[in-house]
């Protein structure tokens, strides 16, 4: 599936919920299911500081695909990370760079992406793009 298709299916999933709390309950669920993040990767250089919640992100480049791993101390942030990973993980650098993350607005969770919300998510997305850019350059330089 393309990143757009995944986003559309996320939007569909969220359309099921009428109530705000139900949406958040689902996000919390997703946050709980996010695959384990290795504590040894909770390094300072992987830390994306936000005032409100902290986010850790690391990435590997395998077979021209970027593999992301991320975590947060707040579970709602973690739930949104789970959605972001679902869309962005295991993608080529080009896909990562081209993806426009429209789903958060559509599911009414745009507020979580306000730069001033300081939960670390905006910086995390920036960081994902930066990884995309870096791995692209790395790959191209090896050609």
């Amino acid at each position: 599936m393309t990143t757009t298709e995944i986003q559309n299916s996320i939007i569909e999933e969220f359309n099921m919920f009428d109530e705000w709390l139900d949406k958040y309950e689902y996000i919390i669920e997703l946050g709980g299911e996010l695959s384990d993040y290795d504590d040894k990767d909770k390094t300072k250089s992987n830390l994306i500081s936000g005032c409100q919640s902290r986010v850790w992100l690391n990435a590997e480049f395998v077979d021209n695909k970027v593999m992301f791993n991320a975590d947060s101390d707040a579970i709602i942030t973690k739930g949104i990370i789970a959605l972001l990973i679902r869309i962005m993980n295991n993608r080529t650098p080009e896909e990562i760079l081209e993806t426009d993350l429209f789903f958060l607005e559509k599911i009414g969770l745009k507020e979580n992406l306000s730069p001033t919300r300081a939960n670390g998510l905006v910086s995390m997305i920036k960081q994902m793009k930066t990884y995309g850019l870096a791995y692209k350059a790395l790959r191209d330089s090896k050609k």
Partner: protein
Amino acid sequence: MLDINKIRNDFPILNQKVYGKQLIYLDNGATTQKPNQVIDYVSEFYSTINSNIHRGVHSLSGKSTEEYENARLTIKDYINANSEKEIIFTKGTTEAINLVASSFGEEYINEGDEILVSQTEHHSNIVPWQMLCKRKKAILKVVPVNNNTEIVIEEFKKLLSNKTKLIAISQVSNAFGTIMPINNIIQKAHKVGAYVLVDGAQGVQHFKTDVQYLDCDFYTFSGHKIYAETGIGVLYGKEELLNKMPPYQGGGDMIKTVSFEKTEYADLPLKFEAGTSNYVGAASIAKAIDYINSIGLDNIYEYENDLVNYARKELTKIKGLKIIGSPTNNTSSISFLLNGIHHYDAGMILDKLGIAVRTGTHCAEPAMKRFDITGTIRASFSFYNTKQEVDELCKGILRVKKMFD
């Protein structure tokens, strides 16, 4: 007794739904809401008398100036300053503290001098002193607080010496609502010849402050935390001190005469008010004080005290909820943690229930560090809040707990 229904009707913002739920605004420590008496006054000001103040010969300018200078008098009376010359308008508490750090610092702080702050100060009462200490090679020392978020007076006494030039301390801690023993601190400070700045941002709106009785050297507060407009605040300073301090910013209004050869600065209070002052904002503080006086500051204190005690009691009943500190003297703010639930998560869900609390470090990172936490959930109260709202908060917290279990 307050007529709480009447009061709540004065605050239009309270009467609204958030995510379909009745708004419960418990973020008064960050900023207070404004009564119609203030909002309408601001509109009226801009609609009928607005004009730049001072030196104008025309009628509107005279009226605007009068509102501005009368506001100074109202504030002088409210905190019982000795003279209106001691009331300087600033952008807010932060600017007031920076002004003192810069101007008082220039004149009074030298290499090796010591400045004391408490461990629970707001960043605005830490960073200006750090910057000053760096500039002047002075030393910033930290007065620790105990597990109840109270200043350890024994430690304070140990840190105090004739090297101490200034103590900068909040009247009420914004993170925990602790009322600081500033009376005691000021007396002890003066004995060794140190000056005291009291950051009154969280005190001035909750109980009577008498700067002459306290004998503090500086006192600061923000308009937006005392039911007035944003973008205006007050520095009180003893006239004698203010006179000795060099001006802070330069520009229009703070000068007597300007020439390229020699510029003479104006007398107090204008000496510290460069540029067009926020005269509407300043006048809005007077209107807010009028409003407070119409209810009675003592009545407000009593009501809020009762409310906060009730909140502390009710919150304590919730399993897994831990209030940070039970200071003997406290007011307005309660900081707490929920076992196993991140403060951000709790705040997000409470918001969806219509309940506005603040989460995070409350601009007091060192205070968080002291308690080895990354943040808290803070409910902060005003006289327009009710016990019913406290009950809703408690219910909301139970709901949050259920969601994260």
